[in-house]
Structures are given as structure tokens and as C-alpha cells.
């Protein structure tokens, strides 16, 4: 308030601002009446279509904008978005993760929202987005979407199975996890551990935190060179392979996919499971017949980090209603919506003024981990391709047929080719 010379001036300014806001709001009303926006998102739950209809009702009422919501399945997302963004009638607003944000963005699919995001009329909201999160979403000074959530990973533990085996503490290191899983498991009735390692189940998402904990990454910070075939990545990948092939605490590849493992855990036949915290609400709602808890995924040598991607709201460059789309993005990025959404799907909001844990103690802890050890994916047009090369190597190695070194060497060569291309 130093910029105002007297108190009366600041009061006057405040009154003016209120007027301006009201005027802007009214103007918005008139300006967007009758506009229809197409909105598409890959789902975080099978009830998402219903929920969205409910949550978007107030927005539609207030602005007069009609929102048509389409669910785009994860498996068909790339083909659908490519076809849509290249077409003549695009989705105005879409949900995009770090992997696709700049892939599509740099090909001209999205509007750069930098100026709107940093604009004066958004400054209050803007101040609530931590720079660390925003910076990971910026590529060459372009921001192709407003950060919405960061999806973290939690380790779900079946406390009853642990108690039966005389284990009192949820494992915190790799060695402890192997020991505990071995003590508990009794395959095929009870398995020790599960984390997805396949291309189809986004295996990289669940294993990169381990790569980071071992002190490495799949690409150099400047995206100049691939580092897939490096010591830390080899060690981290070997750890994942050993769980399946050597220690045999995790079911063989293909026996259970990600959703299958969820069912396995729900049935009380799995001790430890890596998945997104979004299952907390689902498990609590269904009332699992045993005691369970979540913990941070195990670390290495005291390193424990929270890997994640960021989800964004993007505006299509071809959208004919850029301003209306921005209104929708503002609504979807608001603290209120973020709270509503994450109370249901339990992601960590990308803004710091939202408590979406709803008093849930487990989620509060998850929130805390994200705030203290977050180590998110930096967006890049080639990151999806690099992750694909890594996860193909991971999948090959976890079939137990291909040695880790061989799989990573092939991925390294392909990743170098990818980076060398213009």
C-alpha cells in the first residue's frame, strides 16, 4: 500500500477497483451470453462426467457460457487430441499433462497464456501459484496452460498383512521394502509389492522418483544429452527388475495391470502398492475390509522425493472464443474449483491457498510430502518421446528376459537420435 500517498486515496482506489471488478463482471456476463465452449479432459474417475456437470453448473449460470464436456480416454487421448486440434472445430479448453503440454503447444495447438496468467487482473490468483511449479511448466518463455494439479505417488500399505508378519513400521528404504515384502508374501495368494512398469500403464510415472532418488535422470537438465544409460538409472531400473525377477515379491509382468493390482490390493492380497493418492477417496468410500495407510514411496540413501507431472488447463489456439475460454480456465483454476475437484480426486492443488484434504489425515500427509519433497517433471516437446524410450526399456527389463544394461543401451541410442533431430 506504499504506492498510495494517503489513506483516502487508497480507500478511493479500493472503491474504484470494486466498481471496476463489478463492471468487468457485468461486462463479462453480457459478452459471453450464448457462447458455447467445448471442454475435454481425460478422466480421473468413472464418475467424472457426472461430477463435472454438477461443478460446471454455477459457472454456466454466472457467465451464460454453455460448456460441453467430453471425456477423452487416456488410451485414445493422443489420437483424439491430434485429430481435434488439427481439425476445424476444436476443443476450446482441455486438460493437458506436462508430457503433452509443450508437445502439442510447440506445434501451435495452444494459446500462450503467459500474458493473461501474469496480467494485472489475475495477479491476486497468480500470487498463489508457487514459482517452482509454474517454472516447470514454462518452455522457452511460453506457458501453454495454467497449472491445476500435481499428481503425486503414494505407497499404500495393508497394515493387517504387516501385523500378521510382525512388521510394525511401513518400510522407508528400498532394502526395508524388499525385506518386509518377502516376509509378508505368500504367492499366489498374497503378494508383497506392486508398481506398474509397462508402457500401457505409464510405468515411467511410478519409477522415475526412484531414478531421482538414486541421483540420476533420463535426460540432462538442458535437454542436450540423454542420460538413460547412466549409473543411477541402471541402479534404479535394476531395483525395479529385482523386485520382480530376483526377489519375486512382485507379480510377473502382465499378470496384473495397474487396475488389476488395485483390485488385488482391495481384496487384501497385496501388501504394498504404488499408485496415485486419488485412490484414497475410492478406498475409503468402498470401506476396505482391513486397516491400511499411505506412506511416501521408499527412498534410497536417505533420498526421498515426490515425482509428479503437472496437469494444466489449456486454451486451443484455434478457439474462436479466447476470452470466454480464459473465463473457463480461470474458473477451473480457482481455489474453489481446485478444492472441490481435489476433495474428490485427491490430487495436490498447484496453488497454495487451497486445502483440499477436507480434514482427511492421510491426504494432509500426502499434501505435506508434496510441499516438502516435490520433484516434478519439467515440460518439453520431446519429454514424451524420452519417457517412452525409458519405459520401453523398463518394460523390456522387467519381463526378466532382457538384461537391464542391454535395454537401457538401446533406449539411450534411440533417445540420442530423438534429441539430435530438429
Amino acid at each position, binding site marked *: 500500500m506504499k504506492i498510495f500517498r494517503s489513506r483516502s486515496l487508497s480507500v478511493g482506489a479500493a472503491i474504484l477497483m470494486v466498481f471496476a471488478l463489478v463492471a468487468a463482471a457485468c461486462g463479462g456476463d453480457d459478452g459471453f451470453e450464448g457462447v458455447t465452449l467445448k471442454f475435454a479432459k481425460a478422466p480421473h474417475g468413472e464418475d467424472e462426467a457426472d461430477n463435472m456437470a454438477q461443478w460446471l453448473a454455477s459457472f454456466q449460470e454466472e457467465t451464460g457460457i454453455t460448456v460441453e464436456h467430453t471425456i477423452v*480416454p487416456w*488410451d485414445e487421448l493422443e489420437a483424439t*487430441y491430434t*485429430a*481435434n486440434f488439427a*481439425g*476445424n472445430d476444436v476443443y476450446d479448453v482441455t486438460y493437458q499433462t506436462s508430457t503433452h503440454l509443450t508437445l502439442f503447444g510447440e506445434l501451435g495447438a495452444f494459446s500462450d497464456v503467459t500474458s493473461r496468467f501474469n496480467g494485472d487482473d489475475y495477479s491476486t490468483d497468480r500470487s498463489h501459484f508457487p514459482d517452482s511449479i509454474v517454472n516447470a511448466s514454462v518452455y522457452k518463455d511460453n506457458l501453454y496452460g495454467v497449472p491445476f494439479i500435481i499428481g503425486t505417488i503414494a505407497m499404500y500399505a495393508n497394515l493387517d498383512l504387516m501385523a500378521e508378519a510382525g512388521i510394525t513400521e511401513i518400510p522407508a528404504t528400498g532394502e526395508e521394502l524388499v525385506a518386509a515384502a518377502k516376509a509378508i508374501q505368500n504367492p499366489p495368494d498374497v503378494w508383497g509389492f506392486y508398481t506398474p512398469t509397462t508402457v500401457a500403464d505409464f510405468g515411467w510415472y511410478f519409477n522415475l522418483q526412484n531414478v531421482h532418488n538414486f541421483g540420476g535422470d533420463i535426460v540432462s537438465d538442458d535437454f542436450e544429452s540423454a542420460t538413460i544409460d547412466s549409473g543411477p538409472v541402471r541402479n534404479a531400473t535394476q531395483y525395479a527388475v529385482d523386485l520382480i525377477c530376483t526377489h519375486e515379491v512382485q507379480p510377473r509382468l502382465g499378470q496384473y495391470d495397474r487396475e488389476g493390482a488395485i*483390485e488385488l490390493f482391495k481384496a487384501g492380497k497385496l501388501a504394498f502398492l504404488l499408485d496415485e493418492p*486419488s485412490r484414497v477417496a475410492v478406498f475409503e468410500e468402498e470401506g476396505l475390509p482391513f486397516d491400511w495407510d499411505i506412506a511416501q514411496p521408499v527412498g534410497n540413501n536417505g533420498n526421498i522425493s515426490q515425482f509428479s507431472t503437472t496437469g494444466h488447463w489449456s486454451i486451443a489456439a484455434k478457439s474462436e472464443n479466447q476470452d470466454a475460454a480464459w473465463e473457463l480456465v480461470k474458473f477451473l483454476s480457482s481455489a474453489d474449483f481446485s478444492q472441490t475437484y481435489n476433495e474428490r480426486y485427491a490430487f495436490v492443488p498447484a496453488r497454495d491457498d487451497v486445502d483440499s484434504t477436507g480434514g482427511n489425515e492421510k491426504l494432509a500427509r500426502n499434501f505435506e510430502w508434496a510441499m516438502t519433497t516435490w520433484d516434478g517433471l519439467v515440460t518439453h516437446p520431446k519429454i514424451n518421446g524420452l519417457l517412452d524410450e525409458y519405459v520401453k526399456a523398463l518394460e523390456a527389463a522387467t519381463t526378466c528376459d532382457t538384461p537391464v544394461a542391454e535395454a537401457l543401451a538401446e533406449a539411450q541410442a534411440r533417445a540420442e537420435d530423438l534429441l539430435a533431430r530438429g
Partner: protein
Amino acid sequence: MTAGSAAPERDLTTDGAATERDMTASDDGQADSFELDRAAFEAAGRRRRTSDRVRRIGAYATLSLFVVISVGPALYLISPAFRDSVSLFAYPPEWIPRRPTLENYRFLFRNTEYIRWGVNTAVYATGVTLVSLVTNSLAAYAFARLRFPGRKVLFFLILSTLMIPVAAVLAPTYLTVRTIGGWPLIGDWIDLDTYGGLILPSAVSPLGVFMMKQFIETLPGGLYEAAKLDGASEWRIFRKIVLPLLKPALVVLGIFVFMITWASYLWPLVAATGDDYRVLTVGIQSLNGQFVTNWGVMGAAALLTIVPVTIVFLFFQKWFVQASMAGALKQ
């Protein structure tokens, strides 16, 4: 004598049911027919009848096994379709739903656009079928009955695209439809996310032209010549004389095109990106994914989709079989 000659004769009438052991028996019968005493022959006959029966049982058992394999997977769907997903993991397995539920169907109709997908599929497949029938029979008539320069070259060009897979031309076809979609007027009808854009690129297969041409060429030429001498126009001849005779071929082609179209996945996936024009194959596959995998619902959707086709199939079985052969044997 009579007994001896009976063996080979019988062989001729059993319509291919003869077996290796039959052959040895009839060899004996032929070579030693005069010396063969009645008891020995009767023994051979009994042996053959038993071995016939064994072979027949074996054959029908084999055929039945393959019937089970063919129909089994679809029949089994009844089980998961009326159970919740959790019970799939029950041990011992629950073959027959203990507590049958309609929950999967409730979900399908309430939480997905299943009905819309079904309507879209019907419009899509019917549209492609109608367009194909009309355009293919007209073109086939021209190729079969009219003489014009470049006829052979054009026909060969068209025919050489007979087997072009959708996947190989997916992107350029997409770009073509997108380009047309950007044009005034016509773009309102033929664009991505329109029925026109969905239907026309699926109605390009020359198979129908080829099939109908072959068929028209087998029609008696006399009628055609007579009509021509009467001064009837080609259009009139086509409509009044050729078309009525084409009916069976049109039914076969129609079923064939319909079956191919409603089963297609790749083109509808990229040509329709929203629920407004999404078809069943794309819609049902979308039930099989991250965060939404619900095997009960998948089973329910698959079962519900296959039932109406099966009913239609049972009514028009003869046509179906002919239609499937049309692609290969007619050639």
C-alpha cells in the same frame, strides 16, 4: 458273389464317409470276393460300421469343440455382465452370478453415452451402406455394359486400390476431410465431426463395383439388347431392367459393407473426436482405460452390442454367409 461286390458299391454311396479301414476292407472285398465266406464278410461289415461310428463321433466331437471355442467367449460374457467387478476376483470362481445385478447396465446408460454411440453407429453404417450400394451399382453398370474410352485403364486403377488399408492412408484422408471441411457450404456437410465426413471416406472400397460388375455381366444380354432397340435410355434400362435383377446381389453387398463398417475403429477414432459422433467401437474401447476400467461394464457393453447383431444374423444367416464369401469367392 453278391456279398463280395456289395462292399465297393456301398463305398460309392456313403458320400466320402469312407475311412482308411474301409479301404482295407474293400481291398479285401475286391481281391478275395470269390473266396470270401459270409462270416468273414459280416465281421468286416461290423468292424466297418463300428469304425464308421467311431469316426463319426470323433468328427462331431471335434466340430463341437470348435463350436464351443467359437461361441464360448461371447456366451461367457453373460457372467461378468451381470456381476460387479469385485466378484471377478472371488475364489472359488463364480461362474454363475450369485447375486445378479443390473448395475453395469445402469452405469452404461447413465454414465456413458452408449445410446448415442449406438445411434451414431447405426447412422454411420447405414450411411456407408446406402452410399456404397447406389454408387457401386451405377459404376458397375457403366463398366459392365457401356463402352467408353479409358474404360479398362480406369477399372484397373480403381481395382488396384481394392485392398488399401485404412491405416496406411489415415493421415492423408484425415487431412483431405479437414481441407474440405474448411470450404464454404460443402464444409458444413463434409468435415471432421460430421456424419458426411465420417461416412464418405468409408464408402470408397471398390469391392462393390467389382462384385456388381461381375454380377451384371452374368445377366442375360437379350433383355438389355431388346430394351435398347426399343429406344430406352441407359438410365431407364438400369432402373427398370437391371436394378430389379440386382436385388440379391445388392442384399449381399449391403450386408457385407454394413458388417465391415460397423466394425471399423481407426477411421471413426480420428474422424469423430467428441461424443456427438463417436461410434460404438471407439466408445466401448474408451471404457477400457486408466481410472475407469470396470470389467463388469465392459462385459455388459460388449454383450449388449453383440446381441442385436446375433439376432439379425440368425434371421438372415444365408445372406450373411454369402456376403462374407462375396469378398473372396465371387472373384
